[in-house]
């Protein structure tokens, strides 16, 4: 017994000496991410991981989105919009250079935007650029972008990762060797493990405090927890192991921050299929789901939503009271619509935990109102093919992570098949509204219309749970767009 004790004491002593290394001025950062980006060009792929590495660090656009989701100047120092909303005149920053020395000017803006709309463009958000009629360069420091029709939210869209500035001589290699204008320059990518970058000494703006940053890809929740606890990582901004948070909170070395993302988690319904084409059924399903209990069961820290919009978005109205949890009402509505108790419905579940675990919770809730939910797990490729492309589904759980994407309900063809001429007309009005007040009023009407029609059961806004070293300052608490902006990150003494 005494020998065990001795070993334990020696172990503790060793741990103490090794753990209590003197705090020294640190100017590097190692950050954990769940998914590795497939490549590093945000203008040629949809993966959030691309933006989480490159956005605002390596690449910049004319505008940028800040931590609160607001539009700020970036490579455009300022801009004016014509009264008809069709002409945007951007004053560009001068003296800006790409990491390879290529100067940034209006020619780059013209090139970047024209490339995004070209017939062979592989930009995942080509729709953002679709309103652009042309870009003119009266002088190198002025870019005049004209639109075919007014587009509310154009400046917000030009702040996305998909709209960053790229130079003609580096576009072919940006996927593996990204060259931007940002405060960090890419140095190395060890595939399957990490991406490294260093401070850009020639940055046009305020120089970053960090000398170097490493993004490491650790998907397994237990491995992520171990890497944080062992100090291998300084920060894990989208921490994948909610069950470990209690232990981490108790440890004074770390801070845990709960913030928001643009992710709207919904139980999507195939509005083309019976019985979901019946409004009463859709409303019944909305009454049948207890959002608070669902969020709790997933320990996800999300906030309930009442339409396809999240708290904090411009013009947000709280519609979460529209369909309170009421199984009796749900049953009555289902009976009215002729859905017999014991009816089987299939829920297709993509891989994330919010879907797989959430599906089990929702199935139990639906059971209470007499619906037998059959859960079918699918992988991403299958989900995209069967659900998204072919609309071959009854229900699915999915988080729509694009910010402010009310437009998807106005499309002629989208996987959940919501068709409402009234909504489309409202959305067109919103797009063409130039007056900010009128825009806000229309945004409110759009949300109300969605809540009324309940094309999908709106569940909750996906939270962002970040874990990082308590001495680290300046990381974003919220993710209005996918990003790990390191511009303002520093270590406290």
């Amino acid at each position: 017994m005494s020998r065990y004790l001795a070993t334990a004491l020696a172990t503790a002593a060793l741990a103490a000496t090794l753990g209590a290394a003197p705090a020294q001025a640190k100017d590097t950062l190692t950050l954990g991410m769940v998914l590795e980006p497939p490549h590093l060009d945000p203008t040629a792929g949809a993966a959030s991981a691309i933006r989480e590495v490159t956005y605002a660090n390596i690449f910049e656009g004319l505008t940028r989105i800040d931590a609160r989701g607001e539009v700020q100047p970036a490579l455009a120092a300022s801009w004016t919009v014509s009264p008809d909303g069709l002409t945007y005149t951007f004053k560009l920053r001068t003296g800006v250079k790409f990491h390879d020395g290529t100067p940034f000017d209006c020619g780059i803006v013209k090139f970047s935007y024209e490339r995004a709309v070209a017939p062979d463009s592989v930009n995942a958000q080509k729709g953002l650029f679709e309103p652009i009629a042309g870009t003119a360069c009266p002088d190198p420091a002025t870019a005049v972008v004209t639109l075919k029709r007014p587009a509310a939210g154009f400046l917000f869209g030009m702040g996305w990762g998909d709209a960053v500035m790229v130079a003609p001589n580096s576009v072919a290699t940006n996927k593996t060797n990204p060259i931007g204008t940002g405060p960090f320059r890419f140095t190395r990518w060890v595939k399957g493990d990490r991406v490294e970058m260093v401070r850009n000494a020639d940055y046009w703006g305020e120089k970053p405090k960090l000398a170097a940053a490493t993004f490491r890809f650790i998907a397994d929740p237990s491995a992520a927890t171990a890497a944080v606890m062992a100090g291998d990582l300084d920060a894990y901004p989208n921490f994948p192991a909610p069950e470990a948070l209690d232990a981490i909170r108790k440890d004074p070395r770390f801070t845990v921050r709960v913030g928001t993302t643009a992710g709207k988690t919904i139980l999507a319904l195939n509005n083309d299929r019976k019985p979901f084409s019946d409004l009463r059924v859709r409303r019944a399903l909305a009454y049948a789901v207890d959002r608070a209990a669902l969020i709790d069961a997933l320990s996800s820290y999300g906030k309930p939503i009442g339409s396809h919009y999240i708290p904090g978005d411009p013009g947000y109205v709280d519609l979460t009271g529209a369909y309170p949890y009421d199984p009796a009402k749900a049953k009555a509505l289902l009976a009215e619509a002729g859905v017999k108790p014991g009816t089987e419905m299939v829920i297709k579940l993509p891989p994330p935990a919010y879907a797989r675990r959430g599906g089990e919770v929702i199935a139990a809730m639906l059971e209470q109102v007499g619906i037998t939910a059959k859960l079918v797990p699918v992988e991403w490729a299958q989900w995209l093919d069967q659900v998204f492309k072919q609309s071959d589904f009854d229900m699915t759980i999915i988080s729509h992570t694009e910010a402010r994407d009310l437009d998807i309900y106005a499309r002629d063809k989208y996987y959940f098949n919501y068709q409402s001429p009234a909504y489309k007309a409202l959305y067109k009005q919103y797009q063409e509204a130039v007056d900010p007040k009128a825009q806000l009023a229309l945004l409110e009407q759009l949300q109300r219309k969605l809540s009324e029609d309940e094309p999908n059961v709106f569940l909750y806004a996906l939270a962002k749970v970040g874990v990082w070293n308590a001495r680290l300052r300046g990381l974003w608490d919220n993710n209005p767009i996918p990003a790990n902006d390191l511009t303002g990150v520093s270590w406290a003494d």
Partner: protein
Amino acid sequence: MSGFIARRLVALVLTLLAASLVVFLVLDVLPGDPASLMLGTSAREDTLAALRHQMGLDQPAWVRYLAWIWGLVRGDFGISYTYSVPVSELIGQRVMVSLPLAVMAILLSTAIAIPVGVLAAARRGRAADTTLMGIAQVGVALPNFWLGLLLILLFAVTLPLFPASGFAGWDKGAWAAIRSLLLPALALALPQAAILARVTRSAVLETLGQDYVRTALAKGLTGAAALWRHAVPNALIPVVTIIGLQFSFLMAGTVIIENVFTLPGLGRLIFQAIAQRDLIVVQDLVVLLAGSVIVVNFLVDLAYLGLDPRISREGAQ
């Protein structure tokens, strides 16, 4: 001997062709479009078509198959859809993790298993045997990822002696690289060692009962000498067979351990490539792994020849 090798080579080429055809056909009917995976839910139809054209996916299946095989013949593995770099480069980097990991695990497991198995056989039915085989029984049942997590908790979190995850890279020096592979190698080796020890024990027990061991004892050899000179060498064939199987498994089957330790190895590459429908990478890897299994089996056969001269004499007749 040369006939043996020639037969093996023909079998190798035929097996690889069969494997390539099977994997190509399976991936071709699998639902999922690499282009829509890359461009996500906002992509428009014309954008998807442009990307499919860029990746050559708009060509008929047989054209893609023949182009791929012709590339392989010339040593061109193609370009990864997702990473946009040559597949040979990707595989090259990953092999530098998976191969040393597999070798370390096999060395560790053999170094543990053979002495344990021989000792247990020599002490059959006694306390040492029961204890060792009891531990081995637990070892066989132990899932290696769980063992990996325990090792991380002990040697990386509680005692910060090893990194919790990741691979330092060979450019940081051999010791740094080996250090980051040691815990995962141990996690892989222990359950393997448990199996191998049991196999060794029963093989040695069987040879201990043979006439030649009794003869050796009868002509005055000590028990230990008879064991090491006669029983153990003759028991090695089943042991080498299991080591060969374990090595093939380790080259491809370490995906869980690679995830637990976040090692950029072949297992994770193939897993990622399947999830992202990086078809060309999956195809190349399956052919490569099939090839490596065949090569390992061939080496095991050669080892038989060395271990038991009767096999080559029979082959010659």
